[in-house]
């Protein structure tokens, strides 16, 4: 424990020295600077770093990125390790506690807080400065999402997602309903969903889903999930309540499968089965839907409907971060910048598995799935994207959503009441810190 903290301090001191050197035109003047600088500049002994990821579909692209990095830096080998999602966070947590976490790994905004506060992540702001990384190439919503307010930068976005409406043209044609237009409104969405609902087919799916569901409509109604001060929930404001009612209205109309049906079979699966005509969700489904060859020609994408206060979509993304306890901080930082850089983004884009965060690589992503003509919608959506709310112990208060919102979805409790109760519960979590 003590030894590890000492190591972190030493690494931090080294970084500080290095930063001082690079600001002085990169010419080390002091002897101390020369020794620290040596590790980064001279072709040192071969180093192997580990890079841990969870998504199987993306692993080939990650290995390709690792290989491309080694080509540029022959002395650094990157070992890509894949862990299944259910084990990823528990393994990472135990590894960080025991000082054996991977050198570089994927991070989510909902999870970063305790790691950053606990000093477990490498601050790469010096490297970003030294390499003149242009932060404007990354979606601001995602950068903001990871900002811990401590002036440090722990990682750069590797990908991002926005939401739109995936729809099944065949079901529209069968019901004789016109396809959604780019400027459709909430009222249009509700009416379309109703018109599409026939025996065995639902117009849309309305699960209790924060990221691809009600958070979007709350922002579209001019509301917020968490108040601007970050200390209170704002779900019980009239605007937020309107945003939640968007979904309960759809449930009331019978335009969606029931919550029980969507608990048994995920909404996305029901959509793929051709029983749901419109599915509001993220860009991350693109490749999966594209690979469903029977469904592929029928897929269309429309922007989210315009709400009472205009357009909005929540946005988030994965960041590449490094472990503070790594033995090779310089090499890891170098890799982190590379893995979130342009070349890596292009590799990801070509695989189609995910929408890369680096600006200018979207076209490559779209060309990976040429039969989908409307993917531009997801990229345009980043203009009105807001960061996914993740204040405080987000995993804890997000986990309370089914408990408080299910009765509202099922029409047993008025939305106002459910929103008030849920807000009070979130306040309690936020107060606990």
């Amino acid at each position, binding site marked *: 424990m003590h030894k590890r903290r000492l190591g972190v301090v030493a690494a931090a001191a080294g970084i500080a020295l290095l930063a001082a050197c690079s600001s002085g035109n990169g010419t080390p003047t002091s002897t101390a600077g020369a020794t620290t600088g040596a590790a980064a500049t001279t072709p040192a002994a071969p180093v192997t770093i580990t890079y841990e990821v969870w998504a199987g579909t993306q692993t080939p692209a990650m290995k390709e990125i690792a290989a491309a990095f080694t080509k540029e830096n022959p002395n650094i080998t990157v070992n890509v390790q894949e862990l299944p999602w*259910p084990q990823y*966070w*528990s393994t990472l*947590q135990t590894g*960080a*506690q025991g000082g054996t976490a991977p050198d570089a790994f994927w991070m989510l905004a909902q999870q970063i807080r*305790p*790691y950053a506060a*606990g*000093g*477990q992540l490498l601050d790469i702001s010096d490297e970003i400065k030294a390499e003149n990384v242009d932060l404007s190439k990354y979606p601001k919503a995602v950068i903001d999402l990871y900002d811990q307010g401590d002036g440090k930068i722990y990682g750069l976005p590797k990908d991002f997602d926005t939401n739109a409406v995936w729809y099944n043209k065949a079901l529209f044609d069968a019901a004789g309903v016109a396809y959604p237009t780019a400027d459709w409104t909430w009222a249009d969405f509700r009416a379309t969903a109703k018109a599409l609902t026939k025996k065995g087919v639902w117009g849309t799916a309305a*699960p*209790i*889903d924060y990221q691809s569901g009600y958070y979007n409509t709350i922002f579209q109604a001019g509301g917020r999930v968490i108040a601007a001060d970050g200390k209170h929930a704002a779900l019980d404001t009239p605007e937020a309540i309107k945003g939640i009612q968007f979904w309960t209205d759809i449930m009331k109309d019978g335009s969606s499968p029931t*919550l*029980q*049906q*969507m*608990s*048994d*079979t*995920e*909404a996305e699966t029901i959509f793929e089965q051709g029983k749901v005509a419109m599915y509001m969700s993220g860009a991350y489904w693109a490749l999966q839907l594209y690979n469903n060859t029977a469904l592929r020609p029928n897929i269309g994408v429309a922007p989210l409907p315009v709400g009472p206060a205009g357009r909005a979509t929540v946005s988030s993304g994965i960041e590449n971060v490094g472990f503070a306890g790594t033995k090779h901080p310089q090499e890891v930082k170098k890799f982190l910048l590379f893995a979130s850089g342009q070349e890596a983004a292009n590799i990801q884009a070509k695989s189609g598995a995910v929408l890369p965060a680096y600006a200018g690589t979207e076209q490559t992503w779209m060309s990976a799935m040429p039969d989908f003509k409307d993917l531009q919608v997801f990229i345009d959506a980043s203009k009105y994207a807001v960061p996914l709310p993740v204040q405080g*112990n987000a*995993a*804890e208060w997000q*986990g309370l959503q*089914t*408990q408080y919102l*299910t009765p509202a*979805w099922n029409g047993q409790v008025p939305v106002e009441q459910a929103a008030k109760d849920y807000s009070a519960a979130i306040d309690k979590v936020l107060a606990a810190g």
Partner: protein
Amino acid sequence: MSTATRVPVRRRVRRTGTPTPTRRTRRRTDWWAVLMIAPATLGLAVLYLWPFLETFLKSFKGNALFGPSKFVGVQNYSNLISNDAFWHALRNSMLYTALVLLGVPLAVVLAALIEQVTRGRTIYQVLFFLPVVTLPVAIGMVWRLILNGDFGLLNWVLSRLGIPGEYWVADARLTIWAFAAVGIWMGLGINLIMVLFISGVSAISPELYEAWALDGGGRARQFRSITVPLLSPTIFFVVILTVISALQMFDLVFIMLGSVNNTAIDGSKTIVYLFYEAAFVQFKQGYAAAIAVVLLMVIMAATAIQFRLQRKWVVDV
């Protein structure tokens, strides 16, 4: 007995000063025993005792994920008992345990029946044992499909019989029952084949049954008067193991409720699921440790009670 003999030996040794053969063998045996047990003891200490102490201490500390946590006294425990979710999870775990215990008499009857089968007995044994060697994740996934409310096999069969189906794994009133059904099915392999059948039923002397048959006793009565009493120590063992593992059930909730979007999850959490959530989803280390300690106490209490009750029904064979 052993101390009574050992004491005079030692005295004699001390007085004479010369090692007698008895002394040498005795000393050496003790030393070897200690040496042989040492690795296991060490393993136990390192892998169980130490983590337990760590957990116990942690349960009185704050929730900091990394670095030192401050001492918070019994706050984690008071938070726990004032949380409705805890009592709900405790109730779920107990209901699940009670239901899974119904699998024990079932296993006893099946064990006795298999003993009667003369041809193809192996087939039955293999069938009942299969769940034991199957991946729990695979079992959970398959049962999820069978129990699916819209296109599951169970509801299809029920509809053929004119019985309306249910959302077995999407309705919080039913999930624990669904878990128990799968839990019993999974437990049958171990309880029935490994323990009851192999070491219990087949160990009952055939002469007893022959004598019973000569006396003209019926099959049902034979089961009640010979098989069950003679099996009772084994049944006791099975009950103890079943209760402990049932109180620790976590995997079925995790796998069978599938996605986080399952709205039945809130009503279906078990104690260990609550622990998992606190430790690995919400990062509440101290709180999670408190849950683990409470679970240990519940298991210890349940086991102690069973040892008490045992005197009333277990036959000394």
